[in-house]
């Protein structure tokens, strides 16, 4: 069992804020797995955390540089097309291709912005891998614990939901903390917005754009 410095993070309500960060440098242990087992999912998370630590080490607080690094990190380790599709719920199918593309861009921006804004909170934490559990053929839950070496913040168990679709790259789809799934929270919020606007997918895009620009 090895410990690594890494991220902080909030509890209950907020997983959406401090989560995600993932790595950039080095070689990813994950790759595409003909061997998409829970072990490969664990390797993916381990590699992500190593990369993350490197970023935390070299981060100077320059927001432009941080955004660039985080964007590359997330692209490398997260399943953005899957996140977009899942978080749009049943309305994804009804959306036009143009709306889908625009939404993918926006949800990417939202997540990158969240990580960039909460990046400082990720410093000073240690990560301990706990377990990896297959959830069918296409998904695994990799569990790990984040703890603060100073004891100032309580330890938190995190479940990374990792796609293990045969023949496709392994990617992180969701982060779950204390039973709260980031992706399901996003999806339910999105669906609420669409339903309040009579099922218009474009209303969600407009609302998210307004928030990003505001």
């Amino acid at each position: 069992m090895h410990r690594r410095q890494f991220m902080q993070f909030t509890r209950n309500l907020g997983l959406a804020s401090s989560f995600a960060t993932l790595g950039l440098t080095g070689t990813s242990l994950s790759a595409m797995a003909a061997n998409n087992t829970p072990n490969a999912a664990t390797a993916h998370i381990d590699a992500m955390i190593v990369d993350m630590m490197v970023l935390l080490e070299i981060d100077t607080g320059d927001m432009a540089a941080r955004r660039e690094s985080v964007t590359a990190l997330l692209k490398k380790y997260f399943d953005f097309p899957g996140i977009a599709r899942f978080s749009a719920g049943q309305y994804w199918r009804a959306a036009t291709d143009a709306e889908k593309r625009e939404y993918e861009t926006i949800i990417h921006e939202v997540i990158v912005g969240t990580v960039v804004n909460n990046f400082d909170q990720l410093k000073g934490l240690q990560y301990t891998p706990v377990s990896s559990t297959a959830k069918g053929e296409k998904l695994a839950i990799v569990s790990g614990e984040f703890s603060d070496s100073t004891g100032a913040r309580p330890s938190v168990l995190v479940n990374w939901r990792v796609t293990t679709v045969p023949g496709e790259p392994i990617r992180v789809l969701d982060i779950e903390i204390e039973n709260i799934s980031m992706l399901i929270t996003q999806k339910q919020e999105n669906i609420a917005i669409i339903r309040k606007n009579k099922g218009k997918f474009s209303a969600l895009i407009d609302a998210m754009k307004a928030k990003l620009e505001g």
Partner: protein
Amino acid sequence: MLVTRLPSLLGIIGLVTIMAGCSSIPEDQRSDIRDKYENGNRDVFAFNMGVDTYVLEPVASGYRNTVPEGGRSAVKNHLKWASMPSTAINSTLQGKFENAGLATVHFLINGLTLGFADLTEDDAVVQREDFGQTLAAADVPEGSFLMVPVLGPKTTRSLAGTVVEMVLNPLGVLGSGNAAQTVISAQPAVGAVSFRAENFDAINDAKYNAVDPYARTRSVYYQTRRGLLEDRVTQRPGESVNDDEFSDFFEEAN
């Protein structure tokens, strides 16, 4: 004893009054099918956000900045200790006798310090059980979503449980002395500040960054509550209450 619970009870009475004035809205106009009083709930949520902005958030911020970690932990320990009688009773009602025994032992041992110090090795082994969970175990329907003034999100069932726990709080029996009475009467306010401080960044993220903070709060409440109802007070490795939703996602993709 009743006086100490007056603010909370007033909140509930306020909610009932508001709800009495609200009619349920048609399903196709709800942003979530479980939220039949959504319009009224959103009004209450706006009120609660005002309370948060002008009272809770600044107080919690001060609390975080001035009270050292040890002090905040002591407060959290006390609040957890104070919930042990309820956990013991509700565990018994649900037939979870081991948990009831553990809660009783923890309550008695840590009672030496009114719960401010944790004298047991690890109180995480006690699973929190409230009367709302007991009602769920008795197959009482969940009811609709309610946003309660000051108390925040509930379902009809969990609100009923909260009311019962307020009225029948076993700690009230212990509160005959002035000091004990003072400590117990301060619990709701201290609990609110402690919770707000502990989740400061997370709550602020939902409050200021969510496109629809109300919908996000409702989602988080339901997920948290579902975890409690499935006895996952603390998440366990590899286990999730959300597995079905992800299975459906991959099936639909095929």
